[in-house]
């Protein structure tokens, strides 16, 4: 590994995921590749030299010099409204990465995997799901995806398509669609007991989301007997958008 450098990144396309989130595809000449679960720093510079930066998880597997980020538009944010509303194909930012060797999944690992996503915490977990599929891995995956309601699902069509060895459960916190028996609410012990793996299977657990969600889910996993060293977490802090 070499030290990190900022690279020019050109927007080549963008697609909406929900009413408030977009997936942005950048071309980054010289991109060294990355692992599922890693993130990047994105830096914006204004005409007058003013600069600011934010961290975003990579949404897709390594793909040559292309990277994909899914960005939620934070109301009154400084960076996310630019990325999701103003930026057009051909516009540039700078990207530095990939970073993070701890919250990663490698396709040579065939242990069972439990992914627990809170809201936009799905992004790095989706990179793991896509990497697994692309590599033809046989590691069994279960995804518990906590979100407000059916309108908030990222990657909805892709997650609906059959993917052998991947089970997906949705945990709606505000409004559940017709026909869903679980009442809307925050993640509970029963969700992880039913939708996860028994602790005896010693799955690798990846939990990503807002801080409160990650705390709650990690505590529940510990209560179910999962070993602390098998639980990896990534909190989305107060980044200021």
């Amino acid at each position, binding site marked *: 590994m070499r030290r990190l450098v900022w690279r020019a990144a050109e927007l080549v396309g963008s697609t909406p995921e929900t009413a408030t989130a977009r997936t942005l595809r950048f071309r980054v000449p010289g991109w060294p590749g990355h692992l599922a679960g890693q993130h990047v720093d994105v830096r914006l510079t*204004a005409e007058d030299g003013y*600069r600011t930066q934010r961290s975003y998880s990579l949404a897709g597997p390594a793909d040559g010099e292309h990277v994909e980020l899914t960005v939620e538009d934070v109301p009154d944010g400084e960076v996310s409204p*630019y990325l999701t509303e103003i930026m057009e194909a051909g516009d540039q930012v700078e990207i530095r990465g990939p970073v993070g060797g701890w919250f990663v999944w490698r396709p040579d690992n065939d242990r069972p995997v439990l992914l627990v996503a809170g809201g936009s915490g799905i992004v790095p977990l989706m990179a793991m799901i896509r990497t697994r599929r692309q590599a033809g891995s046989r590691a069994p995956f279960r995804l518990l995806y906590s979100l407000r309601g059916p309108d908030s699902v990222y990657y909805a069509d892709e997650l609906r398509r059959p993917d052998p060895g991947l089970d997906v459960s949705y945990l709606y916190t505000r409004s559940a669609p017709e026909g869903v028996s679980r009442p809307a609410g925050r993640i509970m012990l029963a969700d992880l007991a039913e939708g996860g793996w028994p602790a005896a299977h010693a799955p690798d657990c990846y939990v990503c989301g807002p801080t409160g969600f990650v705390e709650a889910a990690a505590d529940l996993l510990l209560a179910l007997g999962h070993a602390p060293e098998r639980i990896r977490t990534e909190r989305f802090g107060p980044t200021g958008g």
Partner: protein
Amino acid sequence: MGGIVSIISRGFHGRRRDAGDRLPPGQYLVEDFPVLSAGPTPRVPPERWEFAIDTEAGVTHRWTWPEFLALPQERPTVDIHCVTEWSKLDTSWEGVSLDTLFEDVDTAADYALVYSYGGYTTNLPLEDLLDGKAWIVHRFDGEELQPQHGGPARLLVPHLYFWKSAKWVRGIRLLDEDHPGFWETAGYHNYGDPWREQRYEGD
């Protein structure tokens, strides 16, 4: 900023950075009150709270919460400037002037090290705490000071960058020699005057 400006993000303007004469260089205005923290928020119940001034001669002056509230209260309205580039104008506070707390303190020390519940420290020349320049405040905007903003009580030294206004303040140690605090030993400027943009060591 430094470095070479290479890639401009077309159409990116960033936060408001208008240069009114109340805004020190490099600052932008905020309406909300950002919370920055270097550790878990201490929860100090008033019955366990105390504030102390420890002199260089080894004398300690202490105030319990009721004793502190019984002192003459002032209501400063001041502009505050954070080293992370936000400024907030006309913030209103209620608390006790350091001049009041120092009335009976005999000292020849030149330096103060402010220490907090939770372990935070910050240093400044003693003269920057006196002559109406600093307060120990316990109310903000008419309300009790919330724990995330330093409640029950914090130091308020508005003429320096806001990291000097230690949250959860517990006491002030008076010293003959300067003793750099938490951020001052990690690259931030020892004095921190926003009007001279003293952000980092060497500025």
